[in-house]
């Protein structure tokens, strides 16, 4: 996983609540057995005017000119701004994979669905929670200023606006540590292998039926 320390980028506003994972990456693209290459199909049904197919060339497809990511001013965006309950629906990790593959490293919204929120951190994508009022203000500022960029400083848990004002944000300390260092948490958990074994032995004693081999 690529470490996330400090990042600055153009903000793309998606003024919509309950953006679900089916919308972020439609099901036909989940047939891939890889983790990469989902970027061209991010928001496929909103982004293109025709139906997307897996493994197809997307370069010649008709773009929906009204969709925010197709507008010239938001090209190269790295920060996605959205409304409440972002990432609801399915547990597909293809959603953060697609956002990342497209080039996003940060999402800002008032709230997230739990599984999406969790999946994001595992993939170097930072989901920041800000209150509705602040999110609303950001929508207005992004709309009014072409080329609006934010600096996301994870180390100091700060977002710096173009005028120099900063907005503090909260982040879980363990997740922050993993993101800053690009750590794989399987390795970290395996440091506790002895504790896991001890727990498991006790459980096997008390509830042996949980350990019957399924055939």
């Amino acid at each position, binding site marked *: 996983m690529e470490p996330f320390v400090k990042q600055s980028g153009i903000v793309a506003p998606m003024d*919509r*609540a*309950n953006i*679900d994972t*089916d*919308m972020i990456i*439609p*099901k*036909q693209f*989940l*047939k*891939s*057995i*890889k*983790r990469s290459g989902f970027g061209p199909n991010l928001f496929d*049904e909103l982004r293109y005017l025709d*139906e997307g197919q*897996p*493994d197809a060339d997307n370069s010649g497809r008709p773009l929906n000119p009204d969709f925010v990511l197709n507008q010239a001013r938001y090209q190269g965006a790295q920060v996605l701004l959205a409304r*409440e*309950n972002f990432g*609801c*629906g*399915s*547990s*597909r*990790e293809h959603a*953060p994979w697609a956002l990342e593959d497209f080039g996003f490293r940060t999402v800002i919204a008032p709230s*997230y*669905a*739990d*599984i999406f929120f*969790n*999946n994001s951190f*595992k*993939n170097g994508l930072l989901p920041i929670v800000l209150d509705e009022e602040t999110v609303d203000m950001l929508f207005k500022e992004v709309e009014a200023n072409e080329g609006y960029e934010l600096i996301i400083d994870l180390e100091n848990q700060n977002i710096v606006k173009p005028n120099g004002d900063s907005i503090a944000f909260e982040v*879980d*300390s*363990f997740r922050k540590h993993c993101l800053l260092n690009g750590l*794989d*948490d*399987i390795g970290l*958990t*395996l440091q*506790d*292998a002895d*504790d*896991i074994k001890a*727990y*498991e032995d006790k*459980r096997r004693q*008390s*509830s*042996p*039926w*949980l*350990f*019957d*081999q*399924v055939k």
Partner: protein
Amino acid sequence: MAKTLYDKLWDQHVVKTRDDGTALIYIDRQLLHEVTSPQAFEGLRIAGRKPWRLDANLATPDHNVPTTKTERDVGIEGIVDPVSKIQVKTLDENCDEFGIVEFKMKDIRQGIVHVVGPEQGATLPGMTVVCGDSHTATHGAFAALAHGIGTSEVEHVLATQCLIQRKMKNLLINVEGELGAGITGKDVVLHVIGLIGTAGGNGCAMEFGGSAIRSMSMEGRMTMCNMAIEAGARVGMVAFDEITAEYVKGRPYAPKGADWEKAVDAWADLKSDADAQFDKVVEVKAEDIKPQVTWGTSPEMVTTIDGFVPKLEEAKDDVERSGFERAYKYMGLEPGQAITDIDLDRVFIGSCTNSRIEDLRAAAAVAKGNKVAETLKQALVVPGSGLVKEQAEKEGLDKIFIEAGFEWREPGCSMCLAMNADKLGSGEHCASTSNRNFEGRQGYGGRTHLVSPAMAAAAAIAGHFVDVRQFELVK
């Protein structure tokens, strides 16, 4: 101190608590399917890691499998879509390579993971159950702690048998009273989602309690827990009782003999203590619940069979107003339109929400002696597993459906998310017993209305939504 069911399950599975408030939680069962596992196995391979405990895992392909008999009879080579074929093949290869038990496509025990686990007794009370699928909440109906995870966590559980978790809040949905005739778990859960919204349960473990739940079948409880995630709760749960024990007893992987007695004793405590404190309680009167139908593109956009597509002025704020406007357009509906006036193109009875034997019986009871409306292009019945299909055929349900003009298919996820060939055409309205009415979910441009199995069968016969409680009069 008094504890909730969730508190008890959590405490029983803590391996280690960390200073930052997270905990290492032991996982008793992981279910695997072809869509969210390939990258996890690949991760193990790249890191040179082995699964921690093979017997905790159980796999079956479900999302991509074709549901027509001709394709299924051929086996994997019969899957027409080459990309789907690779994914199903990859699951077989990974399970063979790592030594994980898999019910392969031609095994009669194959089916939708969330039907197969309980059916085999591979889901037991008191377990932690995970799967790379958000509808894993289903298994909480057995007083288990069950939730969906992403692929990185699938790999984490394979490698360590644990997950790093932070404890959630306790939410109780208390349904008191008696459900009316024709009202099912599906109607209860859609009613609840309508009350609290799709984000209402975010950050919470949701327990369904109250007298209406105590008298509900395991199938009904599974349907409710299945859709806890549509209210934002990763976890849905129901306390252990006689009904749970009755369902589990004698299943292939359920404890036997002396172990059974010991297990039932241990399970008896899997309920919230009478004076347990919940962070939030939602009171629901069972008598208030009518048959539910979703009208929009989010499960919270739901109303009753005698209801109407809401008007713009009924939206609570600007964000909801713009959501309504988008949904009217996508669904091709007018504000104020009666639900019974929505013409249907297809009907889908199936999915991890509603494809168990009781669901099929309820639909067949309505279909019996009737004919699917001529205006419908298709009415599909897709059993949740090979064993559900076998049982239904034993009871003659297949014949009832076929005579009525439904198609009787092979088990899989099918049109719930249209990863196989079963899908809606653009602009088509579908009465579906599945769980999500998101844009494009059942096919590009498809328009989904979520309902119970009996309501779906009645809609198939009428060609539009009808109140199943008055169905005798209608026909």
